[in-house]
């Protein structure tokens, strides 16, 4: 790891001001991506501004079917929230399969979404649940947030503070894990709210997380696993690597979509 200077912020404003003073600063949440990257000397921020001690960024509140999750909430807290499970168990299940117990106690939903790793799980939930990404500056609709591999709408000094969404009638996430990293190789999140169906795919797309319009239309007219079976997933749009060719990923997207719909009931 290169030398860096650590700062602990106790409020969002303080964090922004600390970052503003830094030459090449970075926000630090759970560190499960950022610290690993720094240890491999692939990132060298001059300063780290730790967001973990900002209470306002933590916790889950559920009001009727309205859900708000603080960006600093760790995966374990999302996975084990009884309140959240009562309205949207799919999100709890997704969080419960991220990494291992250590990672789930350190890593945060905000860090994962800000990082927008093409194989990360949460971005699919953000898109499929049509979350609003709340930052210190504005509110960003899910459809406007993800901009390709590791790219988002966030500005340098913009902090995600929370996510909000309306819990859907039905939702489920099916993940095919990479045999080595256990990140998603094809993860499909499906959500249904009346006639509104959203299908978001992570791990597979060559441009990162995406919605699949064909599947959404098919499921909107007929909500069943069979409805997605006939839908074409274009291998051209898929990632290809050691673990899975684009053809295999395209196939897995369909299988995971079927399984997610079946699991959602």
């Amino acid at each position, binding site marked *: 790891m290169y030398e860096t200077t650590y700062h602990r912020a106790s409020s969002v404003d303080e964090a922004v001001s600390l970052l503003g003073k830094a030459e090449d600063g970075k926000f630090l949440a759970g560190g499960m991506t950022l610290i690993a990257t720094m240890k491999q000397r692939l990132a060298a921020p001059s300063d780290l501004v730790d967001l973990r001690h900002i209470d306002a960024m933590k916790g889950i509140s559920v009001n009727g079917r309205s859900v708000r999750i603080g960006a600093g909430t760790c995966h374990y807290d999302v996975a084990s929230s009884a309140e959240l499970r009562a309205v949207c168990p799919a999100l709890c299940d997704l969080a419960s399969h991220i990494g291992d117990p250590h990672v789930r106690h350190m890593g945060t939903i905000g860090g994962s979404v800000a990082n927008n790793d093409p194989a990360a799980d949460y971005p699919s939930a953000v898109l499929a649940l049509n979350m609003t990404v709340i930052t210190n500056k504005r509110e960003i609709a899910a459809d406007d947030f993800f901009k390709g591999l590791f790219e988002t709408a966030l500005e340098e000094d913009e902090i995600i503070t929370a996510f909000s969404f309306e819990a859907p009638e039905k939702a489920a996430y099916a993940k095919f894990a990479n*045999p080595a990293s256990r990140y998603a190789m094809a993860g499909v999140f499906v959500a249904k709210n009346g006639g509104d169906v959203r299908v978001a795919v992570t791990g597979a797309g060559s441009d990162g997380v995406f919605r699949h319009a064909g599947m959404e239309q098919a499921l909107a007219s007929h909500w069943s696993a069979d409805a997605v079976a006939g839908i074409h997933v274009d291998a051209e749009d898929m990632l290809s690597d050691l673990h899975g060719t684009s053809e295999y990923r395209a196939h897995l997207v369909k299988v995971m979509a079927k399984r997610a719909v079946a699991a959602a009931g």
Partner: protein
Amino acid sequence: MGVEGIGARVTRKEDKRFLTGKGRYVDDMVVPGMKFAAFVRSPHAHAKIKSIDLSAAKDMPGVIDVLEGKAMQEDGIGNLICGWMIHSKDGSPMNMGAWRPLAYDTVRYVGDAVAIVVADSQAEARDAAEAVVVDYEPLPHVTEALTALQDGQPQIHPEAKNNLIYDWEIGDQAATEAALATAAHITEIEITNNRLSPNPMEPRAALGIYDTAEDHYTCYTTSQNPHAARLVMSAFYNVAPENKLRVIAPDVGGGFGSKIYIYPEEITCLWASRKTGVPVKWNSDRTEAFLTDAHGRDHVSQVKMAFDANNRITALKVETTANFGAYMSLFSSAVPTYLYATLLSGQYNIPAIHAEVKAVYTNTVPVDAYRGAGRPEATYLLERTVETAARELGMSPAELRRINFIREFPHQTPVIMNYDTGDYEASLNAAMEAADWNGFEARRAEAASRGKKRGIGMSCYIEACGIAPSAAVGSLGAGVGLWESAEVRVNAVGTVEILTGSHSHGQGHETTFAQLVSERLGMPISNVNIVHGDTDKVQMGMGTYGSRSGAVGMSAIVKALDKVEAKAKKLAAHLLEADESDIVIEDGQVKVAGTDKALQWFELTLAAYTAHNLPEGMEPGLKEGAFYDPSNFTFPAGCYICEVEVDPETGVTDIVQFVAADDFGNIINPMIVEGQVHGGIAQGIGQAMLEGVHYDPDTGQLITASYMDYAMPRADVLPSFEVSHQNTPCPGNPLGLKGCGEAGAIGSPPAFMNAVTDAIGNNNLTMPATPQKVWEAVNRI
């Protein structure tokens, strides 16, 4: 057997320190004035070094010195060597290129070391390593062995034309060809044995300490054989004469073969300590481990197996190409020859065998022995071939094996080995019964009703352990003898120290070796201490690999114990005024059989040390040493059965059952033996379904350089293993031991692959059988 003697399931003495984080590994060693090293490594698979500029790095904060290979050569530090001479068929010696500890003219793989930085902290050393400016002229590279042999490919060492190190053969070619010509059936198959990274939990580390006052060197290193390290570093690398070099391998967190070899880093740390005057410690990080630890396997073979009209095997013809990487590692040459082709008879009576092996340089990290070393490659090849033959012949795989089993011992194979004993059918029967082989079709049908493809597969392995008779291996080209040594020191109060040349890095020697003493001298194992891993404390020894510490290491202890016991009895007879032949040692006492005359063990040992009343001519004290040279290899064997369910939609394989039935000869501690089998099977399944090293052929970069891309076996992909033993004691050593350290990794890959190919009905599948490959194979039918 006593409660802690031979055969007892004693919990491991060493585990308390390991499980409470109190183990002491090389990286835990701290000595006054110690500084930290980082290596500058080649980012290219193959390049000429035009120049190296150290000046900027030397000016970095905390830097003590930056050293490069030219200076090392000027100081007379030698090339790394391969210690086993192999001759090609035409009689010419193997073509070994130079391996400099620090390359200065050419780098030959990504990770090849070029310079060392010594600094106050590890971080500063790494920062400065990045400031070393190496001007490379990239050269074309080649990472695949079959490609490297072709004309027009990059030439990696001038000594090895077309990158061919040797073209070796064994067996009777004419007889094999004749049998093939008249065969009723020939099974032909191409077998690929995937390249693996060993991944011990503890990465390699080295601490070099040069003592100016004494002109003496100490090397702490993660070694499976510290004495061999000292010998090689003295005799070949000219680091220091043996009497000026102490090598210590303290607690070592796993090796699997990869810590047998002497690597550039320990040599360089010792040399750098002398150059800088400070102790120099280097600790590999995980990516460095992927890049530089010797890899395993990496064979491609063409196989033909001939059968007569009664389905008896009449001949086996094998052509293997083995990827050696960029340099010849210490034992590399022996692995695809004498540790591999000599096992190609398997458990079968095969009248004629001929094998040809080509060893090839490529621009990849060196390849050497990895858990099983050659024997897994032989077993995988044979057992997939036999299974394929059974399918082609329409025969039950168990029956085809059964009718071809060797049943009389000793059995001389056509490929050197002389099997001493075994009962292959006993293990086959035990495994089939444990696996409920006959109930399989019902299970398959039930799985099909759930949309799953269920398959079953077996493998009958044999291996050669107890490595090895010194004269025999010497005649085959080994540069060393493969005996073992032991010293038994009985203290004045009767407690015992065993000094052994074996080295424990996970095997549990502190427990099993103590159990042997407990059995012989009737004392609790808490009274026995095992001393190993330090060349200043322990007499010359040969270390631990090839499942030799029981069959060879413990045999040396037995020999030394025999001498201790003889002297103790002589002294007791004198003190108790009895005949030596009437003296028995049991329950902590030395007794005259059939009388109530007895001495407590400690009374006798004290008498040996007070020396007030010794028999005429007896020397004081009670301490004996012995060297044991085995008369033959030992031949553990067994039958493994694996049952799987494949999800045809995703290609995911679920192992639903795994049965192991092994013959390890006598067993000292069944719990430890089962642990070795469990770990071995996990590693073998890792090879078969998950693991695989990948170099990008276009760039020569290692793609699988972290756990993000290199898939290890984890608990949740493995079933509970069902393990049993059908032991035939080994006649060749005093305890009747055969060895159990590698069997699991040898027997399991073909059992798994035979099960998966049975499930999907497609034999065209290579390891690792990843979901993607299985899915493709399902859909290729």
